[in-house]
């Protein structure tokens, strides 16, 4: 009886063969929803997305996590997966370059436009939210930019770390931190419209190169490749651009890393 109940209640994984299972970095949270919607409208394939931190996915995939496609906020992870034989060779694609911005909710009495970096040091700011620089690329970029701007030494005692960039954004959005350095893609999302954005000049941190790759263990390789091709298409690129990603300059089908001829 109990066994029968378990079988009956178990999620029907096999029923949806055409599903494309995507592991996506947290900075894609809003862009990916729109990408998936457009893609589903065109192809009737189903895209199911799991969001998380790229480093976590990297460990999980090496331990057999059932994904078809991996979008990493740090291209190093898919590169390593490819080198270690966990990915389909030649499918690595640099889909975007992430940008960071300073974001403050309107309640925080700062004037980001005029203050810029100094807003982080303002008296009204007790907590600055960033992603954990130990393993999140956006966190690393935030620290590098603060160091370059010469505010890190004063700001570091105010830092709080989100487990990933989306949690850092949530810390500021909820008002628990007064200001944050977050992904532009999140700052542009509807949920964060009640705040001010100050873009950090791109030369203040090394580019946050994002890479996607089809996994060796993928059940739906064809679908995964199709979704990746959609990302390279004009409409896919437009969505990424809309959410504040810089696009790597390249012709339509090829990335910096040569894919199939």
């Amino acid at each position: 009886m109990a066994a029968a109940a378990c079988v009956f209640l178990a999620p029907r994984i096999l029923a949806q063969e055409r599903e494309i299972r995507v592991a996506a970095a947290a900075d894609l949270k809003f862009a990916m929803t729109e990408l998936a919607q457009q893609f589903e409208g065109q192809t009737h394939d189903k895209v199911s997305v799991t969001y998380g931190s790229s480093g976590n996915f990297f460990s999980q995939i090496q331990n057999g996590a059932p994904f078809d496609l991996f979008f990493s906020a740090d291209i190093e992870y898919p590169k390593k997966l490819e080198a270690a034989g966990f990915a389909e060779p030649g499918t690595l694609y640099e889909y975007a370059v992430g940008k960071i911005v300073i974001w403050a909710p309107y309640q925080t009495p700062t004037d980001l436009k005029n203050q810029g970096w100094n807003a982080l040091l303002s008296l009204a700011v007790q907590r600055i939210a960033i992603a954990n620089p130990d393993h999140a690329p956006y966190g690393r970029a935030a620290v590098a930019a603060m160091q370059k701007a010469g505010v890190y030494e004063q700001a570091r005692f105010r830092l709080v770390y989100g487990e990933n960039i989306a949690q850092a954004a949530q810390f500021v959005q909820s008002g628990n931190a007064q200001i944050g350095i977050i992904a532009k893609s999140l700052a542009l999302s509807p949920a964060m419209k009640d705040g001010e954005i100050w873009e950090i000049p791109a030369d203040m941190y090394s580019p946050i190169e994002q890479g996607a790759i089809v996994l060796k263990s993928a059940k739906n390789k064809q679908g995964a490749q199709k979704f990746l091709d959609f990302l390279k298409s004009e409409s896919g690129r437009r969505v990424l651009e809309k959410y504040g990603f810089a696009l790597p300059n390249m012709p339509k089908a090829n990335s910096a890393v040569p894919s199939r001829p």
Partner: protein
Amino acid sequence: MSMDSLLLSFRLALCVSAILLVLAMPLAYWLAYSSWRGKFLVESIVALPLVLPPTVLGFYALIAMGPRGPLGKLWIALFGHGLAFTFTGLVIASILYSFPFAVQPLIASFESVDQRLLHASAILGAGKLRTFRRVILPLSLPGVITALVLSFAHTLGEFGVVLMVGGNLAGVTRTVSIDIYDRVQSLEYGAANRMAIILLVISFGVLAAVYAINRRVWTPWTAK
């Protein structure tokens, strides 16, 4: 290897279990001896953290502690800063999280005290407080220790709530479970493993002590 996070977790667990014992004692007493019919409602509330996912507790704790939440507003008015990302904030969230682990063993042991002893104590002229101190408490010592140890161990192993309200500050809110998670994410499996093993051994030791006390294999005090 950094012991900071382990020490922090110990400090947190000690604070929480000590405060919980003080808070849980009168509540457990009332729940054990009250004859009010609506008691089951209070019991249900006390047991809630057992069934609620840490995300629910963490989510509400973060909102309550934020500048728009009641607790956060009060705290900002009193101390000038919010509660999230502070050690105090963690203590409050952990008290909620471990509440049933302190209250339930106390109720069970208070209820198992022989009623005749309580009556005898009353007939001999002892007040309620004196009866509690001289009769109930000594006889409930295993329950008290179980409550203390379980709430300590449960707080030591807390993860989800801390992840949601902590902000991962070294020495303030980076507990050992968060540290282990970070190490795994940074692919430092060796460091993660060392901390995890320490936690495993401590947890086993703590549980073995509780079960030994309950089975009367070991009596760290002398019963008279």
